[in-house]
């Protein structure tokens, strides 16, 4: 491990925000699961777009509008390539993972499920991949069922139970996360989607934590829907993606309605454009899509396989080092973990720990990480979380450990 070149050597200088002091210490940004940072080239592309090319898209025939439209649609093509989608028309731009999932909940699940049918998900989901299904179940009379998280510290879901469950229950829809944002475990998405497909169950993958971290090939995975957020993979805020198989998108009613998504309108009624435009009512976040395309270029230059192993290496290193601390409880599996490590240190409340770490420039997250029911199940009201991206260094893990040690002294844990 010592001789291995970490990606941080090559990338750290690309991220302006990382080179600052916080409370008199160099910033150690370990809150990447909440939001990553952006390289200068993405920030510059957003500025460049506004300085040179901005106009509204789709509706215009003048030069700026043509340029803006071309850039916006090229961004769609770029995202399709990023996911290896069969066609750009499978890519809908949204605000983020949350909106992508809400869209599917409204336009597919709520429109199609019948009383008694089952929406299946897991106990480790982010609120964004839980509450939309609660509402869809309420509205349709469908039941929401959970694949349990096993292990005292939340090792993950026992996916071997999936096939039997799919056989036993009238499951129509299966939604699950690729990488858990609080446990750090990695779910075998291709295997899961295959099992679901065999019995005609429609699948949605929450890729908020994996897009930009791992290779993603929607055709190989064979999921029906997949959602992610730009701000979690070096892109701008306010932009996200819903991938959907084209034949599904074409069957779905629009989610929001207004300009840009209609083919013809009378005072009484409207007809919709084909997907993806049907799902993009109103002026879209043009600069966001263009900035996201630039971010994906950046990531693919680094290479997602390289990012993935770098993530896993940092995650593993942090896990093993943290285990040395007296009184620590680390959530999630020991093996096969992504660059996300949640923990509880002795009796120190996560809030105190995070506030303490911040005084030493170390940015952690503390709380339920938008997985309240999971935390409750694990007997925690909150936990602290360190999450890594390719620009993080092993020295930063040292800084983290030193800070946690001195926190334990300080709070007398």
């Amino acid at each position, binding site marked *: 491990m010592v001789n291995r070149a970490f990606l941080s050597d090559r990338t750290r200088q690309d991220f302006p925000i990382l080179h600052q002091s916080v409370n008199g210490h160099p910033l150690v940004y370990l809150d990447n699961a909440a939001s990553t940072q952006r390289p200068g080239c993405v920030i510059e592309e957003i500025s460049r777009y506004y300085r040179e090319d901005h106009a509204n898209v789709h509706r215009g025939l003048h030069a700026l509008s043509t340029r803006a439209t071309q850039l916006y649609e090229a961004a769609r093509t770029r995202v399709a390539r990023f996911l290896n989608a069969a066609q750009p028309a499978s890519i809908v731009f949204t605000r983020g993972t949350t909106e992508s999932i809400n869209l599917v909940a409204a336009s597919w699940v709520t429109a199609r499920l019948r009383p008694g049918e089952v929406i299946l998900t897991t106990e480790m989901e982010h609120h964004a991949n839980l509450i939309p299904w609660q509402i869809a179940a309420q509205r349709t009379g469908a039941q929401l069922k959970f694949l349990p998280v096993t292990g005292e510290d939340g090792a993950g879901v026992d996916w071997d139970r999936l096939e039997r469950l799919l056989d036993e229950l009238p499951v129509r829809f299966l939604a699950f996360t690729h990488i858990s944002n609080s446990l750090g475990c990695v779910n075998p998405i291709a295997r899961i989607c295959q099992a679901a497909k065999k019995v005609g169950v429609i699948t949605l993958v929450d890729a908020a934590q994996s897009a930009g971290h791992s290779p993603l090939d929607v055709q190989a995975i064979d999921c029906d829907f997949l959602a992610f957020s730009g701000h979690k993979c070096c892109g701008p805020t306010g932009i996200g993606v819903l991938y959907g198989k084209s034949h599904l998108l074409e069957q779905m009613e629009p989610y929001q309605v207004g300009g840009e998504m209609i083919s013809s309108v009378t005072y009484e009624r409207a007809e919709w454009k084909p997907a993806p435009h049907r799902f993009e009512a109103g002026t879209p976040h043009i600069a966001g899509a263009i900035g996201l395309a630039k971010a994906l270029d950046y990531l693919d230059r680094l290479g997602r396989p390289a990012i993935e192993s770098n993530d896993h290496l940092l995650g593993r290193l942090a896990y093993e080092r943290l285990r040395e601390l007296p009184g620590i409880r680390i959530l999630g599996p020991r093996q096969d973990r992504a660059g996300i490590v949640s923990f509880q240190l002795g009796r120190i*409340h996560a809030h105190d720990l995070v506030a303490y770490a911040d005084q030493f420039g170390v940015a952690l997250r503390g709380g339920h990480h938008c997985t309240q029911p999971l935390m409750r199940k694990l007997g925690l009201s909150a936990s602290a979380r360190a999450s890594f991206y390719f620009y993080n260094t092993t020295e930063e893990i040292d800084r983290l450990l030193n800070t946690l040690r001195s926190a334990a002294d300080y709070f007398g844990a």
Partner: protein
Amino acid sequence: MELDELYQSMILDHARRPRNFGELAPPAVRSEGYNPACGDQITLYVRKGQNDTIEELRFTGQACAICMASASLMTVQIKGKPVREALRLEREFIRSLTGPDDLGPALGNLRALAGVKRFPQRLKCATLSWHALEEALNQPAGPSEGGGPQG
């Protein structure tokens, strides 16, 4: 270090060894304080005495040091005091934490929480138990245990 302002030794002490920690049986009134954003959770038990005083007061919960210490300090400060006096103290405490003024001498040991003024994200932690107190004081007394007349 700035942090020491937030975590004064009195805070750390009360967080580690909270005073008046535990439950009270009915007819003590019980109320919950919960901050879902961070998971702070406090249960407060209040028994009023004659002349509208706060005769007995206890709490349980899982929360950060600021929240635990604030609850602990609160119980010490207001036990035995008239309800009116407790509510006045609450107003004064919240006003000084959120306004321009310093925490005055009337607040006694609560002044150990002055550091919260520089950490506004911790304001909710410091005030959670007080909101629970207000709620408890606004409740009618619970049914008394073991044979009192049911009303």
